[in-house]
């Protein structure tokens, strides 16, 4: 009897593998191959002179050592983290506040919420061009500041303000996205929970801290993790708005890797930068999976 149930379990497990195999092969080809190719490339010295003629040699970790000794790469890495963290903080906080606001039932709540989504629906390249105009010296932002008697900075020209302008434009796109996801999270909380808490005498702050936040933990975590992954690999916004300049002040790992590989034809160095990007995102992904499994437990 025991033997029979074992063989049934084994058969079921075989069937399960049959279902997994197509997806596994797909993943292996579409994700595994380019990833392995990229890893191999990052340990060689492939450049414009030897890409097709051959002669590229294995250089071990030399590309990575060169990168971390290069001031530009260190600046780019710093920019990427500043950009990601700043965007996450502002997008999440403002997105959460808006989600709480629009979750209330009031007249025109739906249409205004829909209007806010417009910035999320605009292609990033268009957002980049808009940002380039809005933050130019005589652009909308400085014009508005001028009306209040404030002389605005040269946003996209100064190395200290260019990244701020790019962060603001990215938040403009990211806030509605955060709001949308967080509203879905809020909708999943049963109104009865709030009702019973109110009957027990809980005020707004207590309801927010002890009901909303704990019950929204899963949604918040998803929004933050997705936001991190999406923002960390940013490319098109800075590519259009500033081309990574001035003086690499808005260069991030995505644009820098692209510049090394496709503008300077330093393919191995570009791959090494892409690997650094991948490793950072992989760690965040693992962290997310671990938190999810803890939630499930």
């Amino acid at each position, binding site marked *: 009897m025991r033997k029979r149930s074992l063989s049934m379990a084994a058969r079921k497990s075989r069937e399960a593998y049959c279902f997994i195999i197509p997806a596994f092969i797909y993943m292996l080809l579409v994700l595994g191959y380019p990833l392995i190719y990229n890893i191999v490339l990052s340990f060689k010295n492939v450049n*414009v002179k030897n*890409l097709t003629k051959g002669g590229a040699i294995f250089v071990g970790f030399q590309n990575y050592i060169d990168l971390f000794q290069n001031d530009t790469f260190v600046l780019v890495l710093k920019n990427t983290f500043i950009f990601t963290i700043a965007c996450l903080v502002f997008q999440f906080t403002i997105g959460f506040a808006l989600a709480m606001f629009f979750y209330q039932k009031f007249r025109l709540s739906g249409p205004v919420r829909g209007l806010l989504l417009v910035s999320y629906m605009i292609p990033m390249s268009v957002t980049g061009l808009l940002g380039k105009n809005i933050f130019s010296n005589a652009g909308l932002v400085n014009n508005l500041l001028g009306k209040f008697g404030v002389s605005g900075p040269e946003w996209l020209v100064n190395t200290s303000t260019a990244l701020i302008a790019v962060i603001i434009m990215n938040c403009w796109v990211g806030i509605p996205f955060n709001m949308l996801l967080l509203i879905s999270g809020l909708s999943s909380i049963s109104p009865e929970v709030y009702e019973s808490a109110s009957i027990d005498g809980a005020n707004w702050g207590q309801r927010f801290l002890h009901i909303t936040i704990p019950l929204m933990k899963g949604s918040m975590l998803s929004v933050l993790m997705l936001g991190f992954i999406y923002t960390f690999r940013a490319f098109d916004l800075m590519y259009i708005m500033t*081309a*990574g300049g001035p003086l690499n002040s808005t260069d991030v790992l995505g644009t820098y890797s692209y510049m090394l590989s496709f*503008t300077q034809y330093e393919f191995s160095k570009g791959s090494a930068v892409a690997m650094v990007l991948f490793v950072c995102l992989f760690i965040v992904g693992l962290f997310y999976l671990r938190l999810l499994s803890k939630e499930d437990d």
Partner: protein
Amino acid sequence: MKKRLLTTGIAAMSLMVSAMPVYAEGSPTEVTLWHYFDASADAQAIVEWVDEYNSLQSDIHINCTYVSREELMNQYTIGALSGELPDIGMVDSPDMASYISLGVFEDITSQLEEWGELDQFYEGPLSSCMDSEGKLYGLPQNTNCLALACNMDVLAEAGYDHVPASLDEFKEMVAATTNADNDVYGFAMCCISTEEGTFQLLPWLRSELNGESVNVDNLTAESAINGLTVLGDFVANGYMSKECVNWTQADAFNQFAAGKAALAEVGTWHLAQTDTIGDAFKYEFCMLPTGDAGTSTSTIGGENFGICSGAENIEGCVDFLKWLCSKEKEGEWAVTAGKIPTRQDATADYTYEQEGFQVFVDEMNFAQARGPHAEWPTISEAVYTASQSVFVDGTAPADALAAAMEKITPIVEETPLP
């Protein structure tokens, strides 16, 4: 019965034969051509010209595809590995050396030498189609250079009735025409952190000072430092907007066309866009006064066409290149697209801006090529980064150029510039 079977058989055979694609002897080879012409005039012209060539011969049938410049360059790089390349490809002249090195283009030296018309091409544009051994991989289809556009109304208000004749006079005019209250700058140019920026910066770095001028392999020379100092001072004194570090060449021209810059560094192709100025103000063009009195420097631009590796019918594709770059077609294209022919024997009868075109044609005598060098993009990056550090951070031009030379020197020591 037999007869009916035979009739049915013949009918079936006829049907099969008629349904089969015709690959009879003499049918043209399907050829793909990728280009990035995106201005209305040249984008339309390339399609019409390809149709015309298709109707003139039956060896190849060319299918013309537009791919944006950035995407086209990426496709060449990817295609160098995957082999997925068009048969005929367009490329920006300074990039060609890199793609030759990547193996994107076929060596067509023998076919072009047999043609016997290579000596008619200007040396600069033709050299951009060669590798370091002098082998040819394509033909220069159009060329252009940079000159100075002057708003004569603003100059008149500042007390000048002529275009600048020397660097000193140019500096004076830039200072005199700047009007901060009206947001009018004396000078506008593109210094963006791309090849466009390098293209516009090079005339100043390769300017002539006390009879001496240098190439990018010696940017710590006094003449190069002086050239960058002139531009750095413009920015520091507010005569040129710091925003030039984000301006493309189109942006710089738009500043001039909108009356926001009295003088601007512009390209030949902008002559086809002067209708945007209309009657708003009087304008003239003159050679770039970059150095000693009576001297000028400029940079050669333009597009080349090459035959990509693995092309099916190389001979047929080369014939198309010869036709496209023939004496008559070169002249015609220059007028259509607002460019300069790459051949000395071609005549371009410009129907508009004739005086302006003459300035650019004269300027071509002082225009220098970029490279050709397989690692030009890295050299270019060093050039625009040095200039941006002067404009944005206020770095001393000598220090900025010394930093650039730290990147450039190992490259040119390994493979010297021609």
